[in-house]
């Protein structure tokens, strides 16, 4: 197969993945402000799209992690072929679409890594993967980031409530947090752009390096940044329309103070990690924050069954996308015919899932997604009264 044709094919596929990523993740930033009524849904979605676009231009640390670490490239490692990346992307997209259809909580980022790793394992064997980088930059951040976000959100919620609490029963002005939510959710959208658009930039850069159009170890080209930013913003906007349609069907009770705390924690965790080059899953961070902030409210209880279901989805994504990626790589090994088979199969799956989703009822399960679902993990008694101070101090005049 013509070298340039496969490169074009890979770039197109990568951009499609970027699009599905935005599509899949609009709810991460905008589920909580819509739930509390801080933003009109239409405004929220448009804002998310614009900020994803802006965010993509901010940093390239994560892209460098992907293009220059996980798979050993260059003289001492293996030669990455575009076919391999192609197979990995097929794995990632197919798994992303399947989980989206089934309403399973999953991470676009892990689908991407799973697909690439699976494809590399089949293509070159175990020595192709730099497992220490996979462990330190992908697997551990995946486990630690939701915990970090949850812990931060829990503390932030406690803090916000403690500072604004009034024992005299007078209005506490907590609805003022709605204004803050506009900014904090915008920050999450921005963070999503910086982290997730970079993953696609990394993949495209990896391809360009593999075919020798770019020196090894260099960062993404400017045009790559631009097209990735546009693709993710477009996906975010398109995904948002579906969310608007289904609004009000499955959102959980989120209060403005809690939503603000959750969003700030999500943004802070993602931005801090992006800055250090950890390619973590924004979905998982947002979910961790929602759960953590729910726990920070009085009278909350964890629904362990729901939490367990979400956890299983997280664990499943990497190997499942890996399996699809490996399968695609196996077929791609047949040469041009294999790539053709992969392409046709991939297109059939994507179109099939798309048509299926049009047919089936749009529900909160497959649209408002994992972040809303993770809100259900925490059971909260409706509006518990604040406990009065145990012993009110008598101040002598």
């Amino acid at each position, binding site marked *: 197969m013509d070298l340039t044709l496969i490169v074009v094919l890979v770039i197109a596929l990568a951009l499609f993945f970027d699009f599905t990523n935005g599509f899949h993740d609009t709810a991460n930033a905008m589920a909580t402000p819509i739930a509390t009524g801080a933003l009109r849904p239409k405004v929220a979605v448009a804002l998310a799209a614009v900020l994803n676009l802006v965010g993509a231009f901010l940093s390239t640390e994560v892209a460098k992690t992907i293009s220059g670490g996980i798979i050993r490239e260059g003289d001492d490692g293996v030669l990455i072929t575009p076919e391999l990346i192609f197979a990995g992307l097929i794995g990632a997209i197919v798994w992303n679409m399947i989980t989206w259809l089934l309403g399973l909580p999953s991470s676009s980022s892990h689908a991407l890594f799973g697909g690439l790793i699976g494809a590399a394992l089949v293509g070159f064997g175990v020595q192709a993967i730099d497992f220490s980088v996979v462990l330190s930059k992908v697997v551990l951040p995946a486990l630690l980031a939701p915990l*970090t976000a949850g*812990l931060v959100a829990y503390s*932030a919620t406690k*803090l916000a409530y403690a500072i604004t609490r009034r024992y005299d029963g*007078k*209005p506490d002005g907590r609805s003022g947090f709605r204004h803050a939510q506009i900014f904090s959710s915008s920050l999450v959208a921005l963070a999503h752009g910086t982290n997730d658009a970079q993953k696609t930039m990394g993949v495209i850069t990896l391809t360009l390096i593999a075919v020798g159009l770019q020196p090894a170890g260099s960062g993404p080209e400017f045009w790559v940044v631009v097209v990735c930013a546009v693709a993710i913003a477009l996906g975010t906007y398109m995904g948002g329309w579906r969310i608007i349609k289904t609004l009000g069907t499955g959102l959980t009770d989120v209060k403005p103070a809690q939503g603000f705390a959750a969003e700030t924690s999500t943004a802070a965790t993602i931005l801090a990690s*992006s800055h250090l080059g950890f390619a973590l899953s924004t979905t998982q961070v947002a979910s961790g924050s929602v759960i953590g902030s729910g726990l920070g409210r009085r009278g909350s209880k964890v629904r362990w069954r729901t939490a367990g279901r979400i956890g299983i989805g997280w664990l499943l994504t990497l190997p499942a996308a890996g399996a699809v990626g490996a399968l695609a790589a196996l077929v791609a090994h047949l040469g041009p015919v294999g790539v053709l088979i992969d392409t046709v199969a991939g297109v059939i799956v994507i179109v099939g899932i798309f048509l299926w989703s049009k047919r089936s009822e749009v529900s909160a399960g497959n649209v408002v997604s994992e972040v809303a679902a993770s809100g259900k993990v925490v059971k909260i008694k409706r509006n518990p009264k604040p406990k009065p101070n145990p012993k009110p101090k008598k101040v002598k005049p």
Partner: protein
Amino acid sequence: MIDWTAFLVVLVAALVGTAVVVSTYSLGIRLLTLSGRTPVVAPAEFTDAITIMTPAEAAQAAKKAAKAAKKSPLTAGQKRAAFVCAVGCFTLSGVAVLYGIYLIVPALHGG
């Protein structure tokens, strides 16, 4: 090989950043309430998820806030001071966010 310090840095940075932003904003709201200008912000759009405040309830809350503000023991000067401090807190919160963005964008500080 595994960079545990980096994880710790992320945790501490996220914790400190969030704490600063959230506590300054919360303090702003507290002071705003103290100054007799309790914010009552009704939801922009009503979805099923919002069970907390209907428009009627929002109007009621605004009335209640105004009433509570009237009874405030603070003098007009103290209220004004509280309001100024509240604005200061909101500004601080915003500045903290902007500083955070400044830190992560390499193009802004030549890194």
